[in-house]
């Protein structure tokens, strides 16, 4: 069973997100993406409001929210560290980099640090294979990451 966090949020931004997309069920995924971007995860309340807005059964919204990698039902850290494990990066030692970072942050892949600062995730190819191995911190891409240099990426200033 997936754990669902119960944090209180003001959902004032939801109507604005709903306006951006046509009012039909093919907008479900894009609305959830905007919510994920806004709150860094998909709060249960937001899922319920989305289901009502698109007149979709809540079970359909929940299936979609748990099917796709982009969505998370638990809050992510301020900084989301994504280590690319695509084939090119894997061949160039991405697992070593994952080891270094996960040891430094003290969390495993898919987890968030206690202080909510960092989330560590693995992603399968972000299309920057020519600069393998790649680590992305929020939207900033770091290419040709060295094993020794991996720790520096997650030093919180």
């Amino acid at each position, binding site marked *: *069973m*997936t754990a*669902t966090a119960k944090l209180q949020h003001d959902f004032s931004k939801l109507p604005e997100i709903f306006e951006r997309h046509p009012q039909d069920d093919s907008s479900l995924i894009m609305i959830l993406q905007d919510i994920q971007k806004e709150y860094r995860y998909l709060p*249960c309340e937001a*899922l319920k409001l989305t289901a009502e807005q698109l007149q979709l*059964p*809540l*079970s*359909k*919204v*929940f*299936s979609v929210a*748990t*099917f*796709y990698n982009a969505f998370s039902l638990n809050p992510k850290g301020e900084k989301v560290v994504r280590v690319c494990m695509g084939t090119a990066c894997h061949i160039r030692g991405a697992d070593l980099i994952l080891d270094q970072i996960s040891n430094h942050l003290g969390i495993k892949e898919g987890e968030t640090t206690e202080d909510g600062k960092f989330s560590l995730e693995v992603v399968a190819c972000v299309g920057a294979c020519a600069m393998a191995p790649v680590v992305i911190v929020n939207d900033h891409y770091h290419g040709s990451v060295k094993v020794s240099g991996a720790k520096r990426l997650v030093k919180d200033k």
Partner: protein
Amino acid sequence: MINISINGRLVQAEEGEFLLTVMKRNGFKAPALCHHEAVEPYGGCRLCMVEISKPQWKGWKDLVVSCLYPVSADLEVQTDSEAVIQERKTVLHLLLARNPHTKEIKDLAAEYGIVRSKYQEVAEPDDCILCAICTRICDAMGFSAISLVNRGHGREVAPPLNEPPPDCTGCLACALNCPTNYIKYTDNGMTREIWGKTFEMLRDPQTGMPTITRVFAEYLTKHREIPEEYFGLGDESHRKRTARNFGKIAAWTREETVREEA
């Protein structure tokens, strides 16, 4: 009407009909765990696979799921060829690895001479074979109260947000049609409890017999224009009331005939 041959026997079918339907109609059997006539064929369990070929394919054969394969003219079907049996046994080994203690899977595997899976059993096995009959029936009935969540090997049937499902009417269709009785519920005539939600049963005022849940009746009244009072009595009391009503008419016609004869 077209002719196809199954295991060498010529049978008739409509162009585009599903092969499994044609097979069943002519007495040919194939296991079909994820198949239920109330919903569209799903093609998930792959146990109903059979071998097909056509003269013009010059010997090329293919394995297809009969539940979804639309028949076409001069199709030649083998329901128990060597390739079919090997595929079916491997699928059963895989299912046994996922559901080692499930009676229906063990029985089906035993039919093919399999007692234990040759693959490694999963960590915490349960009886769910992820055939999605429950979720598809719930969708077909218009409730969509439960659904398949997560993706891949960790997939499972669950109510939304793992809370009691708001859209569930307690009709029990999911539990009653689950091939392995995985969905648990309680039903003591007064209340019914499923997916962590409790439902009050409508009961016949005279006999006290339960009929369906109040929520379900309200749904049928609202969405299928069934007058609310129809749910006021159980079927036995309805029959008694009908007998007395028609009795009045019969009594009235009886007096008429007597009066006419007099």
